[in-house]
């Protein structure tokens, strides 16, 4: 299909919306009803010492599905990857609505994370021309810095307004996983979804779009 046609433009915007909804849906699946076992201390004395029958029963009922690790924040990773590659596919209004919906559905303080994520995406869009010429390493560093920045800003604003901020070690863990998964997200974005950077000649033809 023609890369520049309005049909493709709106199709890709719809695709981003669909992707965001799909990510939210997977977040909401009722399969992680347990807190992370990673930080839970071992309880003493062991249950076998107090109540052997109960311990045996629990061992039988145990499904070995304890939640060991934090998943990455895929929504913001995809938003960043798309913003750098094709700013016109993810307009500010769409990003704001998506992140606000995520805030509402995922029990975060509504508005704050959406605001920070939107600003970060716009920042990347403004730099997309420079980042286009740079290597992937530069992009990765920029994304990592921005993710850390909005994490800190989120924490500072919440602390100033006396709202208990999310657990720091969990946030850091999620940040690390998101940064590590970012190359995969970029690979999927460009190869599977076909969201690639505009070639230089194409950019000129596009004019103001890029």
């Amino acid at each position, binding site marked *: 299909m023609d890369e520049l046609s309005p049909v493709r433009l709106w199709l890709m915007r719809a695709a981003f919306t669909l992707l965001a909804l799909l990510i939210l849906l997977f977040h909401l699946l*009722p399969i992680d009803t347990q807190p992370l*076992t990673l930080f839970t*201390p071992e*309880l003493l004395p062991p249950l076998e010492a107090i109540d052997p029958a109960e311990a045996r029963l629990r061992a039988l009922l145990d499904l070995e599905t304890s939640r060991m690790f934090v998943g990455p924040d895929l929504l913001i990773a995809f938003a960043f990857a798309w913003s750098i590659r094709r700013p016109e596919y993810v307009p500010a209004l769409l990003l704001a609505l998506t992140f606000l919906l995520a805030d509402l559905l995922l029990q975060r303080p509504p508005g704050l994370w959406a605001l920070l994520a939107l600003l970060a995406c716009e920042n990347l869009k403004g730099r997309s021309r420079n980042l286009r010429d740079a290597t992937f390493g530069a992009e990765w560093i920029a994304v990592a810095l921005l993710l850390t920045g909005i994490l800190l800003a989120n924490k500072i604003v919440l602390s100033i307004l006396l709202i208990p901020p999310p657990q720091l070690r969990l946030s850091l863990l999620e940040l690390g996983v998101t940064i590590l998964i970012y190359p995969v997200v970029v690979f999927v974005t460009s190869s599977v979804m076909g969201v690639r950077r505009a070639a230089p000649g194409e950019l000129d033809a596009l004019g103001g779009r890029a």
Partner: protein
Amino acid sequence: MARDRSQSSDYTGPLRRLLLAFLVVVLAAVFLLWRIDSPRVERFRAQVTDSLVPNLDWAMAPVTGAVNLMRDFRSYQRLSEQNRELRSELRRMQTWKEAALQLEQENARLLDLNNVRLDPRLTYVTGVVLADSGSPFRQSVLLNVGARDGLVEGWATMDGIGLVGRISGVGQNTARVILLTDANSRIPAVIQPSGQRAIVAGDNSVAPPIDFLENPDLVRPGDRVISSGDGGVFPTGLLIGQIAADPGGRLRVRLAADFERLEFLRVLRHHGTDTVVTQPSVISDDAISASDAAAPIAAATE
């Protein structure tokens, strides 16, 4: 064509910046509104969840089923071994059941002898878990029962065995349950058999710690923790779990409910505990004469 586009960009540039500024102001306003008037925005959140999540159930149910099937696959592999263990466990449970039945009869006889009046039994609504909180920072689940079924904020929620959490946020068709493990959960509890009162305060770990305990020396590992009903929001006597300690020496609760897989939850209907009337009506003359007058009649009717 190209000229046309580049011309339009001169207009979209400032316009785009204006739109961005507008969006930033709107999002900041939403956040500040939430900070100032949290209940209103939380109600809006409940409405959004209420209108969206039940409609996505057709998509979520099969995926959840598939994920659970894959998880179960590991336990299929040790099926026969598990079957044998369960059989022996069942036989053991049968003897326990017999003992429990005898104790129940004995208890009923003793209660009858002493004319003890028990609380009316609690009734409950059972709901299916539609969704979880969606992030590791919060521990809550969404049930498919809501204001339509007469649910009220603050009611207790149990699985088959123990307390799971309390209702917080009721929509028309859905209700959110804040789990005991959530960092915002505080449940007044009694530790039996010593009768010490304490608060079970969630901290986003599997075993919530115990706060405000008067005398930790009286508490031993393995003691039962049950809800105390202080504050009148919760019914009394719901099992929460057992006392255990972490390596740092802090007391924690080993929860009785199975948080690993929450599928069906019971919401207990509770209309508040009766408060003690402060009016000393017994001492007044009227009350004495009235009770004197009533006594012979009562004796006569017996």
